[in-house]
């Protein structure tokens, strides 16, 4: 039996990071994610880890990448405008394959928007925020317990695939307090980056001959190598106008795409015999679950598909679902973003209805139920 605690989502995120072995946090104050930083400002110095409040969001992201390159599991947490500012260096971490975890506690936007209200309108930015083609793993927990466990999973995926992992939840779940159980050490699997075993003279930091995820040497451990945000060869040095750029960028995508089965995680709730499905994540997923129960009480066969991995998108699962339900309802705290991904996968095989809301309040179960009835 682990420890039972009453925690806020943001605090559970910090606890999850510590459980995963995070020893480095770089951040900048921003609502509604600040509690992640505040919690770790207390905890990290206690365990000999590094807590850094940097001069801005860009610097926080950079410091996190530096910390990771020096061997730490590293975390940053932010919201809206801060997430925009981090994009440049997130791209750097993607291309240079330096593991790190970025938490985005989503608020309303664009611009300063509604700092104290929930949002889900950064979800496409999570995928496409930084320039260029790039791999993205983004997790979308909806409960405080899930924020804890998905944070652990985020670190594991990041270390395993040498790529930044985003955790996107919203202000409501971030600030909500729920009872959670923090498992004893050893209960949840912890993954650490694979280090090279070859002599330093033979080390090629981006050698893909033995797999899509090359072993990663930390700085200062005898493997002197070069890390650059320029496209690079297997030895880490810049290449220009080379076919290698194309094949290497494909490899970066393949690290995620070829491992969809492991990375993609979701909850299916009463979907077996469902005639109407709701596709919803985060706080909207919570409302949707209640809506399913309300619908069932009225004899309507509704069910919920709640992705815990939003990127890569659960293409196959949504395609399969679209083939066996009359319609899919997509509630989201945006003016319509993730619904287009659902549409892409559903390919017109069922009805599709969105529920959009950006006024700072969540979509309530009654709103969802009404839409379910329309689609039925």
């Amino acid at each position, binding site marked *: 039996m682990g420890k039972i605690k009453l925690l806020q989502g943001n605090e559970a995120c910090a606890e999850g990071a510590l459980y995963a072995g995070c020893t480095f946090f770089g951040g900048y104050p921003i609502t509604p994610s600040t509690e992640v930083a505040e919690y770790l400002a207390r905890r990290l110095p206690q365990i000999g880890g590094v807590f850094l409040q940097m001069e801005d969001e860009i610097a926080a992201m*950079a410091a996190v990448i530096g910390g990771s390159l020096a061997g730490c599991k590293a975390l940053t947490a932010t919201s809206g405008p801060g997430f925009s500012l981090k994009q440049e260096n997130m791209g750097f971490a993607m291309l240079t394959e330096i593991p790190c975890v970025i938490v985005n506690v989503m608020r309303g936007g664009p611009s300063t928007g509604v700092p104290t209200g929930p949002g889900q309108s950064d979800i496409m930015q999570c995928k496409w925020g930084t320039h260029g083609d790039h791999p993205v793993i983004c997790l979308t927990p909806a409960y405080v317990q899930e924020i804890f466990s998905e944070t652990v999973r985020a670190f594991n995926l990041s270390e395993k695939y040498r790529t930044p992992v985003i955790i996107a939840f919203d202000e409501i779940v971030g600030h909500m307090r729920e009872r959670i159980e923090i498992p004893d050490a050893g209960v949840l699997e912890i993954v650490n980056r694979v280090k090279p075993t070859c002599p330093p003279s033979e080390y090629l930091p981006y050698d893909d001959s033995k797999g899509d995820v090359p072993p990663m040497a930390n700085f200062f451990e005898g493997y002197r190598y070069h890390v650059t945000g320029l496209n690079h060869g297997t030895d880490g040095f810049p290449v220009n106008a080379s076919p290698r750029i194309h094949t290497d960028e494909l490899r970066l995508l393949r690290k995620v795409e070829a491992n969809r089965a492991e990375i993609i995680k979701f909850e299916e709730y009463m979907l077996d015999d469902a005639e109407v499905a709701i596709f919803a994540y985060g706080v909207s997923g919570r409302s949707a679950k209640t809506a399913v129960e309300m619908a069932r009480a009225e004899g309507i066969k509704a069910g919920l598909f709640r992705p815990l991995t939003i990127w890569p998108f659960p293409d196959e699962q949504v395609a399969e679902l679209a083939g066996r339900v009359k319609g899919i309802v997509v509630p989201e705290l945006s003016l319509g973003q993730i619904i287009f991904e659902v549409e892409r996968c559903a390919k017109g095989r069922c009805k599709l209805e969105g529920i959009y809301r950006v006024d700072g309040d969540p979509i309530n179960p009654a709103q969802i139920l009404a839409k379910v009835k329309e689609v039925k």
Partner: protein
Amino acid sequence: MAFDYDQYIRAGKLPHIWCPGCTYGIVFKSILRVVDTLKLNRDDIAMVSGIGCASRLPGYVDFNTLHTAHGRALPFATGLKMAKPDKHVLVVSGDGDATAIGGNHFIHACRRNIDITVLVFNNFIYGMTGGQYSPTTPSGHLATTMPYGNIDTSFNIPELAKGAGASFVARGTAYHAAGLDKLIIEAMQHKGLSVVEIINACPTTHGRRNKFKSPTDMLLWMKDTYIPAVAFDKLPPEKTAGKFPMGVLFKKEGLPEYCENYYGLVERLKKQREGRA
């Protein structure tokens, strides 16, 4: 015996990208001599850079090297240093990289007084992109984005660093190469944030648009313009117009250093816990 630079240079990574007449090679060699003089273990050095001509230097040296995004070398370096405070972290940057896009990082690294050495290669121009004015381009100089002459006012990098809290500030030039070794040695030995502004020449994108007929003219300009601080301070004001001091311009030992402060806190918390146990 001639100094063996090859021992610190990555085999096969030369020639470098710098233009003929560029003075970065002079500084490059100075850095390697310093590393040798200080007998630093190459495994224990990280050289971090941003974007620009100077920022390509780490690619050529056989250390742990990190070529980051424009202006961002210092926060990356801060991450490395905080994770491994016993290692040497050296940042190479340019005038645009350090004081324009990276200006905020620069002043805050100075303020923290974290034990990192920052070498700012000031060539007064954005060279890599072809000669746009930077925060240090002298007023009146021509640049591709100041085609009628620079109407902007320039930064004095050592004054900026000192004002922001750096505990060691120096200025050297590519012309005064022997003196440069000494400055970089002193900077690297100093505990705290050390900044060395190194005056460089970009004949290709700055000099030829600004009446410097050859790279040599630019070096001679450095010779005439930069005066040892001790001598500079004794000159009457009418003789210092258009001249700048060089050498160690500011140095203060014993100021709180960020890693020491942080890990001091870690130790204090540990002792408190042990005291309670």
